[in-house]
């Protein structure tokens, strides 16, 4: 067995439910459920029975925190304990035949064996186990003359419960497996996405440093202005240091939330007197934010306000800082005319590129823009990574796709359950004095199921749930409307059937309505039975089972729901942790690679400039070439290829002011065509003697693919 975390939890929870059920069953059978003509059995067997029912509860306790193998071993122990009573009894009756009387109720409790077999092995094994045990129990019943109506009713109901448990166990284990598979794919997707974003952010950081520091330094060095040599040296040293420390972690200095509020207040004041600033700090909120996050949020808030001032002139604008336990949120909202983000062409996604991009590039930060007729809201946030993840901003990929229909086992279980209850109704009608009661019971159950609806995976509406519960309660009450002398004849099968209906209702998402139904049903049935003169002992013994079925089902549903929530939280944390790890690893790898490339390309030149010594003409020329090559990567990266690269170097060496533009960045151009353009453009450029040259990949739908122009002539590349 190689179970994931959710599947393991499902197995643990199911074993826990088996243990709890057995404990309640042994207590109930030893205290309130009596027998009319019990089979005479030795004392040691009675003790064995109790021990066998207590064992699953005992093993369930360590299983709750055990690993996969241990859970399986403990489940097998519980399984063995659950088949021991009937097996030992069979041996006992074969060795010492001739006994007559009622079998102990616990012997027929195949539910635990069914559940543990399904948990330890598979549903198929559980079906075989239940089939074999049921056959054995009926054979033993026949052997001791116990095929009385009560026994038949009991065994049919136990069979129905067992079948339901097998189907439910299989469904839950499969559900856990689906969640685990979805978690694995979500982790992989989160890692891929984080790595991609981290590489982009790292590339952006590297580009920013080149753009902000290196280009200016090289440009000035190429110009060779003597009186700026010292200043240039300082800038070169600074640029070299920024390039070489690019891959080092940023200082994790924090900004207090109160200081952040002051900075945002100042931003609001500077941007417009119309901006209303407020800070709403919750009790227990985080008190500090990492400096990079604070800087990004303030800058993005400033841009959002500037955008608002431009696009929603006269609109009321607010800037609100929310302090929360798990992070902070900055909201910029205006009530001016908004815009439809979906209709903004990618080329014009300046808002996204600046506000969203800047914030999202910082770890643990998020940004969203919503715009519509009633205004625009920009939400910027930082989430404390030490705090459990909030509901994901992105679609939750960790939630398994719910099944669209019931599995085959569930369908078979439902069919068998319905047929068994119908058979029980017919059988009851033939053996009781008032056949109308079982007939009314089967009608009430049928109506209750029909009202609940036939789509088994849809949560019934409140009205449907209440009506269904009402008919199930009628089935409970019918227990007390038969002949009081036959009160325990078929051990209140209508109440048990009503409890089944309420169990189904609980599992379909209405546990509290079902619980209420069980309570009302038991109370009314007890009251009606008491009014009919039925003894308290008989009432308790008949109504104990439906109570256990109903309350047990609701308990299982609630526990599983709680486990599911816990699993979801842990999954979200795992995804977040995987995302953060992948981000850090990819960012560092990308930065290290870029540092290496940049250092190899410009490190020596920057060091030379940092010395603030006079440059030779050749060195100045090299600086100009480097500046041009780096600039080309910004605006015409696809043109940075041979033989054009060499032609550009030669031209710049001749003093030609070369500019390369790629004005079709979103247009796919094949490598072969780009090579052709490079050959064609380099031939033109080699003929340019001086002045300026502009090489350009043209936007789509132009007569040519590229253009080349000097101060003397211009031409088009048509492919």
């Amino acid at each position, binding site marked *: 067995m190689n179970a994931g975390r959710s599947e393991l939890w499902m197995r643990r929870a199911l074993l826990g439910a088996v243990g709890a059920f057995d404990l309640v069953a042994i207590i109930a059978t030893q205290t309130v459920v009596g027998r009319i003509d019990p089979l005479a059995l030795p004392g040691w067997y009675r003790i064995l029975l109790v021990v066998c029912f207590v064992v699953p509860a005992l093993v369930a306790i360590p299983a709750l925190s055990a690993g996969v193998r241990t859970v399986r071993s403990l489940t097998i122990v519980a399984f063995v304990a659950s088949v021991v009573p009937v097996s030992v009894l069979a041996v006992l009756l074969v060795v010492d035949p001739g006994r007559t009387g009622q079998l102990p109720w616990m012997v027929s409790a195949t539910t635990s064996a069914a559940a543990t077999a399904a948990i330890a092995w598979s549903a198929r094994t559980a079906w075989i186990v239940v089939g074999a045990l049921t056959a054995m129990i009926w054979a033993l019943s026949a052997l001791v003359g116990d095929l009385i109506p009560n026994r038949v009713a009991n065994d049919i109901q136990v069979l129905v419960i067992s079948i339901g448990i097998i189907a439910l166990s299989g469904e839950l284990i499969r559900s856990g497996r689906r969640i685990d598979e979805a978690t694995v794919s979500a982790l992989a997707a989160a890692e891929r996405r984080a790595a991609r974003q981290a590489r982009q952010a790292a590339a952006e950081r590297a580009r920013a440093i080149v753009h902000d520091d290196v280009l200016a330094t090289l440009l000035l060095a190429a*110009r060779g202005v003597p009186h*700026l040599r010292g200043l240039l040296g300082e800038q070169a040293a600074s640029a070299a240091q920024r390039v070489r420390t690019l891959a080092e972690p940023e200082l994790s200095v924090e900004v207090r939330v109160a200081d952040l509020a002051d900075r945002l207040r100042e931003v609001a004041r500077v941007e417009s007197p119309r901006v209303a600033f407020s800070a709403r700090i919750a009790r227990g909120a985080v008190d500090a934010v990492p400096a990079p996050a604070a800087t990004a949020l303030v800058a993005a808030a400033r841009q959002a306000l500037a955008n608002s001032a431009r696009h929603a002139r006269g609109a009321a604008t607010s800037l609100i800082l929310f302090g929360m336990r798990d992070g902070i949120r900055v909201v910029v909202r205006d009530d001016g005319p908004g815009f439809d983000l979906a209709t903004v062409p990618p080329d014009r996604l300046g808002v996204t590129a600046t506000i969203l991009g800047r914030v999202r590039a910082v770890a643990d930060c998020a940004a969203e823009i919503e715009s519509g007729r009633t205004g625009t809201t920009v939400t910027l946030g930082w989430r404390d990574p030490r705090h459990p993840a909030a509901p994901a901003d992105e679609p939750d990929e960790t939630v398994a796709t719910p099944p669209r229909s019931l599995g085959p086992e569930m369908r078979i279980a439902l069919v068998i359950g319905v047929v068994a209850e119908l058979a029980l109704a017919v059988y009851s009608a033939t053996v009781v004095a008032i056949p109308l009661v079982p007939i009314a019971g089967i009608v009430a159950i049928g109506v209750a199921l029909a009202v609940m609806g036939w789509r088994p995976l849809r949560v019934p509406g409140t009205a449907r749930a209440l009506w269904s519960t009402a008919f199930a309660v009628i089935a409970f009450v019918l227990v007390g409307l038969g002949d009081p002398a036959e009160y325990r004849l078929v051990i209140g099968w209508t109440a048990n059937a009503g409890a089944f209906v309420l169990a189904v209702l609980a599992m379909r998402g209405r546990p509290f309505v079902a619980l209420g139904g069980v309570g009302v049903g038991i109370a009314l049935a007890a009251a009606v039975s008491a009014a009919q003169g039925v003894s308290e002992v008989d009432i308790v013994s008949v109504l104990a089972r439906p109570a256990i079925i109903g309350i047990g089902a609701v308990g299982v549903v609630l526990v599983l729901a709680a486990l599911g929530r816990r699993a979801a939280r842990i999954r979200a944390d795992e995804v977040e942790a995987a995302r953060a790890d992948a981000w850090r690893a990819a960012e560092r790898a990308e930065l290290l690679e870029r540092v290496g490339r940049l250092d190899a390309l410009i490190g020596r030149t920057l060091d030379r400039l940092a010395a603030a010594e006079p440059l030779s003409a050749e060195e100045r020329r090299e600086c100009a070439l480097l500046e041009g090559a780096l600039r080309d990567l910004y605006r015409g990266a696809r043109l940075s290829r041979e033989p054009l690269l060499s032609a550009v170097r030669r031209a710049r060496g001749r003093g030609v002011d070369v500019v390369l533009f790629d*004005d079709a960045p979103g247009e796919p151009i094949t490598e072969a065509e780009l090579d052709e353009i490079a050959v064609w453009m380099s031939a033109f450029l080699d003929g340019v003697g001086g002045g300026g040259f502009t090489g350009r990949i043209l936007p789509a739908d132009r007569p040519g693919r590229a253009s080349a122009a000097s101060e003397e002539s211009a031409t088009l590349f048509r492919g």
Partner: protein
Amino acid sequence: MGAAPVRVAMVDDHAVIAMAVRGLVESDPGLEFVGHAESVSDLFRRVGPADLVILDLRLRDGSEAVHNVERIRGWGAQVMVLTSGEDPYLIREVSRSDVLGIVRKSAPPATILAAIAAAARGESIATAEWAAALDADPDIESAPLTAREREVLALYASGLGAKQVAARLGVSENTIDDHLRRIRAVYHAIHRPANTKVELYQRGVEDGFLPGPTAG
């Protein structure tokens, strides 16, 4: 006595660039370099009045170029933008604001000085960077430009100067300048806010989509 020199200030977070531009500006007797600041707020605080501000398109304080232009225009100075080779989006954004021109930092010093001098005279400056960014803007397709204006823009974007474009099209340089002025005005009008129906109507009239109001 000649006219007072035009006061030029610079906003750039690289002192060395500012110093280099200062050298260029001071080489023209018609210009006076009045100061350098690392941000627009710093400019207002520390530098005296200026007639023309040379603004770096991308400042490290995270401020937006368009917003910076608006603030400087509100301060009373004209704006010329210097760029290191930014992506066309930023150039388009700032082209919609009230700037006289966008010039590449790596352009030859004489070209930069000529642009500063032209801006100091209040003239608009057309460069290949500016034209290429506009020419590649998908929105330009829907702008009310004539075929000739689109042709002028495309030729400018390919790197030709006004004289060459005029020669190619067989018109005078003045005609080309007129076309460039109109292109600039039309592009500036794209995405102007139209918060009300009246403003929307005004934009329509200005762009030639709707007939203007007639007397009587």
